[in-house]
C-alpha cells in the first residue's frame, strides 16, 4: 500500500509543479477565451464566442464582446467551451481506503464524508482531465442512512477553498423491495421530529433549566426536516420509489433519487412531487438495457429535473461527459444533456449561484474541448477552475516514455 500511494503522491507533485508556472501565465486568473463555440448551459450556443474572466470569475460572455486592452487573450478558435462538469453523485476520495460504508451503523446520519475524504488519490487529477470540476461525493449505499456528503471542487489551492458546501444533506438507501427499510427510516424521522420539537420548545421558552441533551444522529436530521437540506436516496425499483414518495408526503422533505433505474416507470408520480432524479450511470460495464436508457428520455419528457452521474468508481469519474453522450444517443436533446451534467446538479445541490453555467458572476470553471463536446473521440484540451489553468493537454504526461 505504501509504495502505491507513494507513487500516487508522486503523480500529484508532478501535477502541482506543472500547474504552478501555468497559473502565472494566465496573469492573476484574468484572461479572455476567444473564438470558440460556447455552450453556456444557460441558453443557446454562442458561435465565435468570447468569455472574459476576471479574478477567477466570469466577467462577460457573448459573441460581440470587446476585450479590454491589457487582458491576456487565450485563442481557442475552432474549439468548444462548456462549463466545468458537475457530478451529483460520486464516491471519489471516500471509497479509496474502504471508508465508504459504516456497515455497523445502518442509521448513521451523523457520518460525514469530510471525515473520510482522501485528497492524495490520482482520481482528483483524472477528474480534472475529464473536465469534471465539481462533485458531490459521499457515503455508500450499504446503510439505510449512510451520512452526509460533501460538495467540492476537484482542484484548488487548499481544501477549505475547494469545498463549496460541507452539506448536511442526507444520503439514504433503499435496496431491493425490502419490507423493513422504509419503517426503519420512518421511525428515525419520527424520533427526529420529536427531537426538533423539544429543542424548538426550549429555544422558544425562557431557557430555564437544562437544555435537552444533544443527539448527533437526530441533530443531523433536523435541517432536512426544516427543508434547509435535502435527502438523496439510492433507489432502483419503481415500487420502492412509490414507498419512498409516501415518506416524502408524510415529512415533506426535499428529495432527489439516485440511480433511479426504474424511475421512468413512475415518471408522473415523481414529476408531480417536484422530486429530482440522478439516473443510472450509463457508461457502465453492467449490461444496462435499452429500455432503461430510453426511459431517461421519458423522464425528461415528463418534466423531471435530471442529472447524470458516474457513481465513481462504478464508472470512472472522468467519464461523466461520455454518460451525457450516451444520453444523447438515447434521445435526450443535446442542450438538455449538457444541463444534466452542469446546471441541473448545481440547482439540486443549491450551488447554482457559484457554478453550473457560463454566466456573469459565476466561478470561471471552464472546459475547452477539441471537438463536439459529447463525442467520445473528442478530447479535453484545457480546464480552468476558478480561472486557474488546472489542466492543459499540451503539458500532458502520457507516461509512455517510462522504462520497459
Amino acid at each position: 500500500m505504501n509504495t502505491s500511494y507513494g507513487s500516487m503522491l508522486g503523480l500529484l507533485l508532478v501535477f502541482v509543479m506543472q500547474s504552478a508556472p501555468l497559473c502565472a501565465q494566465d496573469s492573476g486568473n484574468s484572461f479572455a477565451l476567444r473564438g470558440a463555440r460556447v455552450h453556456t448551459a444557460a441558453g443557446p450556443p454562442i458561435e465565435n464566442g468570447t468569455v472574459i474572466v476576471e479574478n477567477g470569475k466570469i466577467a462577460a460572455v457573448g459573441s460581440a464582446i470587446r476585450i479590454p486592452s491589457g487582458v491576456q487573450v487565450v485563442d481557442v478558435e475552432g474549439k468548444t467551451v462548456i462549463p466545468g462538469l458537475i457530478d451529483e453523485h460520486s464516491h471519489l476520495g471516500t471509497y479509496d481506503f474502504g471508508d465508504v460504508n459504516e456497515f455497523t451503523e445502518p442509521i448513521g446520519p451523523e457520518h460525514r464524508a469530510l471525515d473520510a475524504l482522501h485528497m492524495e488519490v490520482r482520481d482528483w487529477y483524472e477528474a480534472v482531465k475529464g473536465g469534471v470540476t465539481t462533485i458531490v461525493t459521499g457515503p455508500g449505499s450499504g446503510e439505510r442512512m449512510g451520512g452526509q456528503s460533501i460538495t467540492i471542487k476537484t482542484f484548488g489551492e487548499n481544501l477549505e477553498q475547494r469545498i463549496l458546501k460541507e452539506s448536511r444533506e442526507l444520503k439514504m438507501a433503499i435496496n431491493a423491495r425490502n419490507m423493513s427499510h422504509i419503517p426503519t427510516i420512518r421511525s428515525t424521522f419520527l424520533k427526529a421530529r420529536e427531537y426538533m420539537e423539544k429543542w424548538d420548545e426550549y429555544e422558544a421558552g425562557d431557557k430555564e433549566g437544562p437544555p435537552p441533551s444533544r443527539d448527533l444522529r437526530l441533530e443531523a436530521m433536523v435541517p432536512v426536516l426544516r427543508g434547509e437540506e435535502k435527502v438523496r436516496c439510492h433507489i432502483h425499483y419503481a415500487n420502492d420509489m412509490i414507498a419512498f414518495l409516501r415518506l416524502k408526503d408524510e415529512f415533506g422533505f426535499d428529495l432527489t433519487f439516485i440511480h433511479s433505474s426504474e424511475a421512468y416507470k413512475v415518471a408522473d408520480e415523481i414529476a408531480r412531487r417536484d422530486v429530482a432524479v440522478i439516473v443510472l450511470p450509463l457508461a457502465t460495464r453492467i449490461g444496462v438495457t435499452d429500455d432503461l436508457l430510453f426511459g431517461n428520455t421519458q423522464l425528461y419528457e415528463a418534466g423531471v429535473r435530471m442529472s447524470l452521474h458516474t457513481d465513481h468508481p462504478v464508472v470512472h469519474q472522468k467519464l461523466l461527459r461520455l454518460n451525457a453522450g450516451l444520453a444523447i444517443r438515447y434521445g435526450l436533446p443535446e442542450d438538455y444533456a449538457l444541463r444534466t451534467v452542469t446546471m441541473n446538479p448545481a440547482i439540486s445541490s443549491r450551488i447554482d449561484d457559484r457554478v453550473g453555467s457560463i454566466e456573469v458572476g459565476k466561478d470561471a470553471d471552464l472546459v475547452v474541448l477539441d471537438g463536439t463536446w459529447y463525442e467520445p473521440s473528442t478530447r479535453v484540451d484545457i480546464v480552468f477552475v476558478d480561472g486557474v489553468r488546472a489542466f492543459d493537454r499540451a503539458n500532458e504526461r502520457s507516461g509512455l516514455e517510462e522504462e520497459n
Partner: protein
Amino acid sequence: MIRNTMKTIEYSAVAVLSFLCLTTESAWSQQITAIQGGTVLTMAGETLERATVLVRDGKIAEVGANVRVPGNATIVDATGKYVMPGIIDAMTYYGIRPFELNDPSSPATPQNRAIQAYYPYGDFMRGTTGISVDKNLISGGVTTVYIAPGDRQVIGGQGAVVKTWGPDFNSMIVREPAAIDMTIGETAKREDQNPTTRMGIAALLRRILLEAQEFSGKMEEYETKQAEGDPEATPPGRDLGKEALRRLLSHEIPARIEVDYLDDIRTAIRIAEEFGFDLILDSGLGAYKIKDVLAENGIPVVLGPPTHPFIIGGEVSMNADLYNLMNEYNAAELSDAGVKVAIGSFGFGFGSFGGATQGRWLLIEAAYATGYGLSDEDALRAVTINAAEILGVDDRIGSLEPGKDADVIVLDGYPLNIKTWVDLVMIDGELVHERGN
C-alpha cells in the same frame, strides 16, 4: 430505407418465422439481396462510395461501385448510410452463468469447453421455441462473439467463436475450440492450494504442458506406426485435456493468456517460446510497455474496452498498481508499433440489471480510443477484421469480400459517432434486425 416494401415485409416475416420454427433453411438465405448506394467500409483496405454489396445464398457475392444487380434481387437502399462487416466482440463471457465460468475442482481444466455451458435460448423458461436473439447485442451490430471460460484458473478451458444468431445452435458455431484460455496473474492464484504464487502458476503450466508434450509424442508415434500398418500399434489412453493441449502444441489453435502486468506478459511469452505454441494476449493493460517485442514476435492483443479496461480481480481504480499501469494510449501505441489489436467487451451477464449487452457499444469504445491516438481505420479494424484474424476466422468473417459470410450492418451515420445507430443487421444473409422493428 427498403425500396421493395412488400418483399421486406414478406422476408421479415420469414425471418421471424425462422426464429419460431427452427428452420434450418429459410427463404431469405437463398435469395439475392443488394445493399445499394452506401459508403462501404469493406475493411479489406478500401472504402467505396455509393457502392453495392451483393449477397447471394448467405454469402457475399460481389462488392463494388459497378456491380450488376439481378432483377430478382431484394434492394436495400443504403444511400447516405454506411455499410460495414458485422462487429466482432473478440472477448466475452456471454451466455454463461457467472458462477459456471470457473471450475473450482482444479487450477487447470483444459478439457472444459465454454460451448458446453453456453446458453443461446434467451431467458430460462421464457420465450418461444428455438434460438432467441439478444436484441440489445444485435442492435449494436454485433454478429459474432468469442465466448471464454473465466479467468480464475491457470487453464480455464477451450473457448469458441459463435454468431449471435443462427437457425439452430450448431449452425451458430463458427470455430470450436478456437483457443485454450489461460490466466497468468492474481486471479489464477488460489487461497491455500497450489498455485499460490506466480512461480507456482508458471511451474504448474510447465508441468501440464510437458505432460501434454509427452502425450503428443506418444500419439504421433502411434499414428506413424498405424500409418505404416504396424499391427502392434496401440494408442495412449484417451485424455480429453491432453488432446486439447495437443491441438495447441501442433499450432491448430492458439493460447489466449490473460495478462496485465509486464512481468506476466514476459512469463507468457517465455512459456510460449519454450513449448512452441501460438500466443494471444488478453486484456494486456501493460502491453504498450513491451510493444516492440510483441510486434517482432507477431503476438496480437485483445484489449479490454478503453473506458472500462478489463481488470483481473475487479475494476481498475480499486487496484492502485494496475491503475498506474493503465494508459489510454495503449491501443494506439500497440497499433502504431505494428501489433495487431482487437478491442473486446469482456462482457458478461449481470443478473437482474440486464443481459450480456456491453458489446453493443464496441464502436463507441473504439471511438474513445481514437481520442487517444488510434486512427479511425485501426479503431474499426479492432472490432472487425483484426478480431477475425486473431480468432482465426477471417476466412469467413471480418470484412466484406466475395465468398465471406454475409454478416453485414448498415449504419445511419459515421460508425464512430455516438449518435450513429445500426439500422440493419444481416447474419449469413438473413435480416435479423431492423431498427424500429
